[in-house]
Every structure is written in structure tokens, then in C-alpha cells.
């Protein structure tokens, strides 16, 4: 076999694994993703990551936002896997460009308005802040909580 036949693919595997481990250490890429074969190695899978988003309405009240409601599925999967400041900026840009609807029941105050929602009653937010959080499991105390990612 030639050198290319023998070593091209293994080199590619190792190169991508090296990039993946660097991104895990520096950019909050989940070890489950990115080609490093770290799936099922940690509780910190993409589905354990969520965004805590809050905005100020016109009367200055702070409201919690269900940031994932109506979000493009592929963007959400990508952002949960690579929960970088850049993904947060994109999410905030998406949230800022639209209006919001009050959620009657549930655990958030607002969700992004859809095109099918009535125009009346839409709320515009003056400031939006968001942060990546993740579920953290404490085996010693058998407890679970959300904690900021960074």
C-alpha cells in the first residue's frame, strides 16, 4: 500500500479529533459532538444545555423568555452542541428582531411571536440578555441543578 492509502484517513481522524478536543476545551463544544468520539462520556450532552434569556418590556419590567420556542431546529441543535458566545449573539439578534407573546401558562413569561399570532397584544422588548446554562448532576448529593456554562 502507498503512504496515502495507509495514512490519509487515520491522519484525518486524528486531526479532526485534535480540533474537536481543542473546541471542547476552549469553545464549549460538547464532548458528544464534533468527531472526537466522546459520546456517552459525560452528562454534558447538547440536550442538557439551555439558554436563560430575559428582556425588559416597555414599562421596564423584566420578563423571562422561552428562547428556544419556534427556533429553527438546525440552529438550535448547532447552538446546543457548540454553545459559544457567537451562538448567543446570533440568538439574541434573532430575538431582538421580533416581538413577543405572553405565555398564559408555563414557566416563562414570553415566547417569540409567530407569524400566525395576532398582531394585538404583541410585546416589544427594549433589552435582551441571554446566557448559556447547563444541567449539572451532583452524584454525591444526588441533586441536579442548572448552572451557567462559563
Amino acid at each position, binding site marked *: *500500500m502507498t503512504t*496515502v*492509502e*495507509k495514512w*490519509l*484517513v*487515520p491522519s*484525518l*481522524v*486524528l486531526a*479532526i*479529533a485534535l480540533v474537536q478536543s481543542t473546541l471542547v476545551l476552549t469553545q464549549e*463544544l460538547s*464532548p*458528544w*459532538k*464534533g*468527531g*472526537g*468520539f*466522546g*459520546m*456517552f*462520556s*459525560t*452528562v454534558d450532552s*447538547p440536550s442538557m444545555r*439551555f439558554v*436563560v434569556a430575559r428582556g425588559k418590556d416597555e414599562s421596564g419590567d423584566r420578563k423571562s423568555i422561552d428562547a428556544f420556542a419556534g427556533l429553527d431546529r*438546525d440552529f438550535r*441543535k*448547532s447552538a*446546543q*452542541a*457548540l454553545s459559544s458566545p457567537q451562538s448567543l449573539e446570533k440568538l439574541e439578534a434573532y430575538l431582538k428582531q421580533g416581538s413577543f407573546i405572553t405565555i398564559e401558562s408555563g*414557566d*416563562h413569561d414570553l415566547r417569540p411571536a409567530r407569524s400566525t399570532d395576532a398582531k394585538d397584544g404583541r410585546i416589544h422588548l427594549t433589552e435582551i440578555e441571554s446566557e448559556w*446554562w447547563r*444541567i449539572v*448532576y*451532583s*452524584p454525591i*448529593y*444526588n*441533586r*441536579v*441543578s*442548572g*448552572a451557567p456554562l462559563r
Partner: protein
Amino acid sequence: MKPLLEQSYTSELILRLTALALILHGWSTEWLEAILVITCGVALISPSQWLRHPLLWMLIMIEVWWMNAPDWQWIDNHQYLISYWVLVCVIATRRDDPMPVFRWNGRILIGLAFALAFVWKVSLGEYWDGDFIRYEMLMDSRFERLAHFIGGVPLETLLEAKLIENEAILSPGTSFELPPVTERLDLFAKALSWWTLAIEAIIAAAYLLGRRWQVIGSWGLMLFIVSTYICVPVLGFGAILGILGLAATPVDSTKTRAAWLVVLAIVQVGRLV
């Protein structure tokens, strides 16, 4: 069965199984998936001289990479493995005899995938006391039957655990106590954790160390595939590992080749789970 196992047919078998796996184990983007399914369907039914043409596999590789590359952050690792394998198919079909390329790259890909998986599990430290497996048993619906029947955890408790996790998301910063873990579940989580570390290390070492150890590696990998992908059905991973295992099998091991075909069939049982 005998013609399927002949050495002279093995490279063709590997190519046809690869095309079949690409058809069966679906993709994220619908219109690209349709193109890939058509291309692989053509490969599957083609006569040998078309099937073994490198241009066909170059086309398949371009389609697979075109689909996977934009989604590199969130696609599963078996899709990376498939992407590497279609490149191997391109390289291999440029030779009159593809088998040395298939055998070497199949072996190294298995060895590296399991070595990396082992390193991640060891370095993140969530396997030594069974912490990760214990949590997954409580929370991941794919482990529900194991948690209930082997771990002895009532189904209501598993539901309660998932609701508590949801509360933790909705009330960030607040800590919630999970339902107490049964001693059986704790023991089972530890045992499964250590088993996973051991089997992954054995497979990685056996495949990377070379031919003499490969028998151990083959049987270890078959055991891993059958035991894992029936309980946690990631069928795409089971299929690609089975194809790699078949490809890596030494020339004179007819029984091992036969066993790999059986394993590939058993993986599909995971569809029933």
C-alpha cells in the same frame, strides 16, 4: 451463504453493504438524502465493474461530505465514521485489489474510534463511580427498561426524575433532589461503567496492536455491538462498525466473516426496540 463468504467476493460485499447502510441510516437533509439514496441504490444493484469504479464512490463521498460538513457541530460521531469510510472506499476502488486498503483502514478506524472514546470516558471522570451511567439510567428513555427491570427502579420514579430535571431547567440556579437510587441500580451502573471501559480498551488495543490480537478484537467488537445497540439502538453506528469489522477481518477467517454478517443482521433487530 458460501458464495457470500468467498475471499474474492468480500470487497464487493463490503461495497454493497456500505451502499445499503447509507440508504438505511437516514440523513438530516431531505433533498440531499434523496440524491444519496438514488446513488447508493444504483451502487447496490450495479454489476461489479460499476460498483468497483472509483468515480461512483467519489460521487457518493461528495454527497455524504456535502451533507455532513455544514452540520459538523451536531451530527453524531457515526456520521463522521461513515464519512471517513466512504473516503476509504474511494481510495480502495482505485486499486485492482481493494482488500488491503479495506483491511488496514477498517482496523485502524475501529482502533482509533474506540481509543478516543476510552480516553474521553477516562479523562472526564464520570465512569469511575458509575455516575454517568446512573444518571442516564434515570433520565434517558432508552435506558428505561434496563433501569426498571435490572435496576429495580419503579417507572413512576423514572418519570419523577425526568420532571425534576425539567424543573431544574425552568428554575435555573435552584438545586433539586433526585429520587433515591436503589442499591441494585447503583451496583448495576458501576458494573456497566467498568464493563464499558474494559471492553472499549480491549477493542482499541486489539485492533491497534495488529493482526495477532485481532481475533480478540473481533469477538470483543461483536459482543459490544450486539450488547449495546440492541439496548441503545443507534443503528447507524452498529451498521458502520459491523462493516468496518467485516472489512478488517483477515483473509483466511471465513467463520469470522460469517459472524459479521450475522451481527449486521442482528443490529437491525434494534429497530424493534
